[in-house]
């Protein structure tokens, strides 16, 4: 997830898009092996950064010292591709719930049921194959410095008005996902476009003001922190909260009209070698997610889906409707519309 580039040019993005499907080898961004006392090692393919997950893994190894964990980080599209093509991983964790759903729908996941999975809310599991363990809203992060003297908008309507009235503040100072390369950005954008027509007006406005497009939340937050950006729209809330805790130049803009809530999900691939150990890891993962405040990570708990602004549409539904925006015709149409709005 952590690419080094800041903002990609259109050419690079298009190149990636064209060549994306042709990439055969799995692009691992980070990898660490946590040895256990026994021979058992489960390989976990995940989109979550090592820094986020390490405390959990260490805690898990205290409880299950004989299980070793080979933790590998890749982008959500890489995770999807690897599992779809039958790479042998024991657990796949991804923030792209649509791709995870597609894997299960296409038969790449295996069913697992335990008292822990049964305790999950119905909306947090599908066919006992895909399990959600976080409910993460998309948030808007602003730079306190750049927002000095401006009212904090409460709704997207007010945000649109604010952007219109202060072009000098926001010209070339808005960041958002490049939905063509970010699976998560695409998910947020499609769900928001489905729920509210303000999305397109906002997109057009941001496009008109020369919004910078990013692959990942972390870079956007970095740039807001440095003051390069005044506002980053649809940033993964969990990353923002974690950063704001140690960087007071940042602030989360509380938009009360609605929030798009994504579920971070895990599944046991059909190709798993050690299902039993993977199941132990999965159960522990879900237990952590069902706590009111998880102890080992900064990711929000499943209970976050019940917050007032998240309740407007509820978390993104784990169901066949997720396939709609994965359809190549739909994806093409959506990206065309998005490009028309964003790249004027």
């Amino acid at each position, binding site marked *: 997830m952590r690419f080094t580039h800041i903002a990609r040019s259109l050419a690079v993005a298009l190149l990636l898009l064209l060549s994306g499907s042709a990439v055969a080898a799995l692009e691992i961004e980070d990898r660490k092996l946590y040895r256990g006392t026994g021979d058992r090692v489960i390989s976990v393919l995940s989109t979550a950064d090592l820094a986020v997950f390490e405390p959990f893994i260490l805690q898990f190894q205290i409880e299950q010292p004989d299980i070793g964990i080979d933790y590998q980080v890749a982008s959500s599209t890489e995770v999807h591709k690897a599992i779809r093509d039958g790479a042998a991983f024991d657990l796949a964790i991804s923030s792209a719930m649509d791709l995870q759903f597609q894997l*299960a*729908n296409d*038969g790449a996941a295996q069913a697992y049921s335990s008292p822990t999975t049964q305790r999950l809310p119905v909306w947090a599991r599908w066919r006992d194959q895909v399990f959600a363990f976080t409910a993460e809203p998309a948030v808007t992060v602003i730079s306190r410095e750049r927002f000095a003297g401006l009212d904090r908008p409460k709704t997207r309507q007010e945000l649109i008005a604010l952007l219109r009235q202060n072009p000098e503040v926001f010209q070339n100072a808005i960041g958002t996902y490049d939905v063509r390369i970010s699976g998560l950005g695409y998910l947020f954008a499609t769900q928001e476009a489905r729920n509210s027509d303000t999305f397109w007006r906002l997109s057009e406005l941001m496009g008109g003001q020369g919004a910078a497009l990013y692959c990942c939340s972390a870079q956007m937050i970095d740039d807001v922190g440095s003051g390069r950006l005044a506002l980053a729209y649809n940033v993964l809330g969990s990353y923002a909260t974690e950063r704001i805790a140690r960087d007071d130049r940042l602030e989360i803009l509380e938009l009360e009209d609605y929030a798009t809530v994504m579920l971070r999900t895990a599944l046991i691939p059909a190709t798993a070698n050690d299902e039993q150990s993977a199941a132990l890891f999965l159960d522990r993962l879900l237990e952590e997610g069902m706590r009111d405040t998880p102890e080992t990570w900064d990711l929000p708990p499943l209970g976050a889906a019940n917050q007032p602004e998240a309740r407007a549409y509820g978390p993104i539904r784990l*169901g*066949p409707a997720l396939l*709609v925006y994965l*359809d190549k015709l739909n994806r093409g149409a959506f990206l065309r519309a998005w490009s028309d709005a964003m790249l004027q």
Partner: protein
Amino acid sequence: MSAAASRPFWWRSIGQRLTILLAVIAAVLAILSWWMVTSFAREAAERTQDNVLVASATSIAEALRSEQGTILLELPYSAFAMLDAIGEDRVFYRVAADGETLTGYEDLVPINPPDRPGDVAVRTLSFRGDLVRMVTIQRTVLAGQQPVSVLVSVAQTRTGVEAIGTGLSRTAAVLSVAFFLLAVGLGAFATTSSLQPLNSFAQAVTRRGPSDLRPLRRRVPDELSPLLIALNRLMERLGQSIRRSEEFIAEAAHRVRTPLATVRAQAELALHTVEKDNEKQMLRRMIRAVDESSRSASQLLDHATVSFRADALAQDRVDLAELAAKVTEGLEPTAEMKDIALHLDAEGPADVRGDTILLESALRNVLDNSVKYSPAETEVMIKLSKDDATHWRITIRDHGRGFSADSLPELTARFKRGTNVEKVVGSGLGLTIAEEVLQAHGGRLELSNPQDGAGACVSLILPAA
């Protein structure tokens, strides 16, 4: 009998037979209804899924359009969102124009697709390891000037349908078992209450005394009235036949008694005229034999009288003290012949309600027995006393051989005599007559061997008026 023995035990009782047959019927109906509900539920769930699939495929087909010769499609969000309705099922789809896949799963090839536009084909097939239900719709889209046939297929696994079917089937099974148990309970109740008249009928017949041949008068169900009528006719015929034979016996006894009296008188006369001792002896034996015959004839007559009069018992006021005195007096001559003293201890009034002739006959027969079985030169006590507040007791105590203990209970049976009566002539009717009379009056006869010394003790107990 052998046919009945080869049947199962429950076949012998109508109640059990009905209960078990009703239970079997209930079980058959319960299973049948469970099976029907299950298959209807499954069919309904399947039809619902088919309808949702058709709606989904239709909404996709309607989103098809063409622009400058190319066919365009934007999948409606609702087309897939609605597939969530049945359960968590895998979803596959394919849109193909002239056999070329436009979008979706390329390997989802419809079998027997519809030929004409607007037609719908619903099939079940195996896809990627699961049984799926697939709906295919054909639509013709004009691409430029060229009509292109587009097939829209939407398929879904059947997990949700099966879960609904299984759940409803389980519910139906529980309900069927409950209905079965209810039906068995109600069946048992219905059986018991239907058979109740038969049972009470049987009890009414059983409760009757051995000589009660009056017709049964009770309301019975239609099915039982032929039985009741037949039974009453049988009892009537039986009663007539008994009466006829009693009458015949009475007539015979009566006819025998008169010539016997003549024979006795002649023998007495002859006794006075003969001189030789052996001839006198012979005549005395003859007189005794005639006496016995005459006594037996009397008893037969008494018995017939009892049977006859007990049917319509008179309710006269009878003083037992008076009665006892009269009977004792009547037997005085017979007792004297054997030098037996009769001691009467009866103080009136001791009133009872009943038939004087019958009560006299009862007392006479008992007393006659005592005199007969007593050795010469002994005494017989007749004592009238209060048995309890509502009963009178006449006790007749002799000093004869008493009753043999082993035959005590059956002595009152007709023609039954004790096992220790050798050498004494008797008919065995005396105690039977007494007991029948007492029973007809609501009293009873008590036989015992007194603790203090030899002899027999007979008590006649009668309710006070």
